[in-house]
């Protein structure tokens, strides 16, 4: 089965052709440089860039692969979560294509896409396994029980972990994006210098809360300032805050694995690049196998959307022209059956 995938949920424009577990082509245009100068993803600019790049990227896909559209079995497009303006470009383009070529059209949950990305990297990977998705927008624990059954078992009830990194970096006057900055300076600091709270760590569920951490850091900074020190111990603060977050993440995800008798954990999302996080994985290496897919499939791309959409198409699903993007696709306790 050959599926065309389209991804425009945030700041990567991507189109791909996937045949079963094989990526025929996966073209990604990253807008990161465009946004960098603004200090964050500007939704309006993201949408403009998608519109500008998508047709050219699509033409390139056709000419590079020499695949004729008549050969494809369907079109898969990210329907959310994501920036509404950005999602709309991909979805509307996909609708036009579906109408023109009379193809089935399925809307794919971006997160489910990330899960299916694993099959493109590790075709041998078999459920059950746990996914920890840690990015700027999402902090989730997913349980993949069996092929095609994905269940959301934990999530941040407030800020995403990437968001916490960014906000704390801001409090510490570090640059944007905050994650890599904190990662960098934390190496120079002492993770035990301050003890920040590990909220919800010992709760029975697998949810996270990172909103309190930023407050704790804020108050620590204020306390230090009041104490009259000449220079903030930025490195120590960053290291300690990072330590708190990673502790919670690892504790909870390994607990989720154990509770569910699962011995495989897949890490996904930008925060998975964090060096301290990777370092600490070793502590569990004897009991648990960790998969960290290569960045190509870990960052946003259309191949994973095509792969996930394939499951929907196999089931005969066709969302047709009434497909609409859903920017906040998650609701608490929702069960995502991705296929």
């Amino acid at each position, binding site marked *: 089965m050959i599926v065309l995938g389209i991804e425009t949920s945030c700041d990567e424009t991507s189109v791909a052709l996937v045949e079963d577990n094989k990526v025929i082509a996966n073209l990604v245009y990253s807008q990161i440089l465009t946004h960098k*100068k*603004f200090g964050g993803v*500007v939704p*309006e*600019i993201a*949408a*403009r860039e*998608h*519109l*500008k790049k*998508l*047709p*050219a990227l*699509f*033409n390139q896909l056709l000419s590079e692969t020499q695949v004729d559209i008549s050969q494809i079995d369907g079109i898969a497009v990210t329907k959310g979560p994501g920036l*509404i*303006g950005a999602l*709309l*470009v*991909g*979805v*509307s*383009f*996909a*609708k*036009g*294509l*579906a*109408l*023109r*070529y*009379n193809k089935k059209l399925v809307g794919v949950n971006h997160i489910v896409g990330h899960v299916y990305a694993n099959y493109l990297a590790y075709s041998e990977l078999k459920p059950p396994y746990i996914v920890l998705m840690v990015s700027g927008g999402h902090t989730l624990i997913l349980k993949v029980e069996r092929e095609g059954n994905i269940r959301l078992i934990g999530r941040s009830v407030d800020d995403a972990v990437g968001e916490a990194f960014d906000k704390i970096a801001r409090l510490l006057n570090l640059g944007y994006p905050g994650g890599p900055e904190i990662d960098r300076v934390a190496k120079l600091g002492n993770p035990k210098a301050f003890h920040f709270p590990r909220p919800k760590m010992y709760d029975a569920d697998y949810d996270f809360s990172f909103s309190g951490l930023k407050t704790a850091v804020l108050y620590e900074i204020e306390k230090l300032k009041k104490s009259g020190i000449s220079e903030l111990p930025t490195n120590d603060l960053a290291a300690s805050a990072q330590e708190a977050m990673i502790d919670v993440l690892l504790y909870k995800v390994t607990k989720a694995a154990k509770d569910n008798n699962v011995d495989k954990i897949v890490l996904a999302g930008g925060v998975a690049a964090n060096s301290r996080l990777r370092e600490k994985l070793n502590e569990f290496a004897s009991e648990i196998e960790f998969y960290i897919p290569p960045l190509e499939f870990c960052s946003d791309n259309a191949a994973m959307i095509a792969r996930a959409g394939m499951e929907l198409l196999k089931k005969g699903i066709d969302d*047709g*022209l*009434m497909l*609409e*993007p859903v920017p906040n696709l998650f609701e608490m306790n929702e069960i995502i059956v991705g296929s």
Partner: protein
Amino acid sequence: MKVFSIDTSTPRVVACYFDEEKKIMIELDTKAKHGIQVSQVVEKMKEVDFANLDVIGIGIGPGGLTGLRVGISFCLGLGIKKKFVQISSLKLIAMNALMFNGYIGVVRKAREGYLYAGLYHSENGKLQTIVEPFIESIDVVREKFKEVVSNKPALILGDGAENFKDIGIVLEEPKYSEFNLPSARNLYLLTIEEINSNNFVDALHIEPLYLQKSIAELNFEKKQRQLQQMQEK
């Protein structure tokens, strides 16, 4: 020749299809999202062979950014490797007053205090663009209009028209708010016109008439300039 044309620059989605055999014109104002309204329009055109269109017309704005992008990206998908013609969404509104002999100003609300504006002149069914679409504050638009129109006959259309009673006729009856919106027939006429003038563009050169860089971009440029000036001192 099979031609499909659509404008999504306002809450009303208007579209037309025509070939040698038939013409279908549809206007939808269902308060649904643009994406849904576009799909509804297409559903209502089931007699159309969308696989074999020859030309696709697109209203490129100015107007609601999201709506525009929905319409344009839909058309780009629909028209891969086909010919496109671009329709000015303000001229489309000016066409509502085609039979008016005199100046036709079109003013549509943009962000608070600003208007998308364009100035046209019509005589015996010939509409000419006098001032291409631009975005400005109400006062600047007024000055620009005044300068050209002087005291000659003028009619002002668009949801910002009420500010221009000193410059031209403004249709005040509520029902005539219809004339502030595009019509499928006029879309048809402008599409024909663009085709006859051979104004074809290809997919890669279509861009909505945003008329304004995103303000974030403008702010960035401003900051860069300030920085440069500081460094120069």
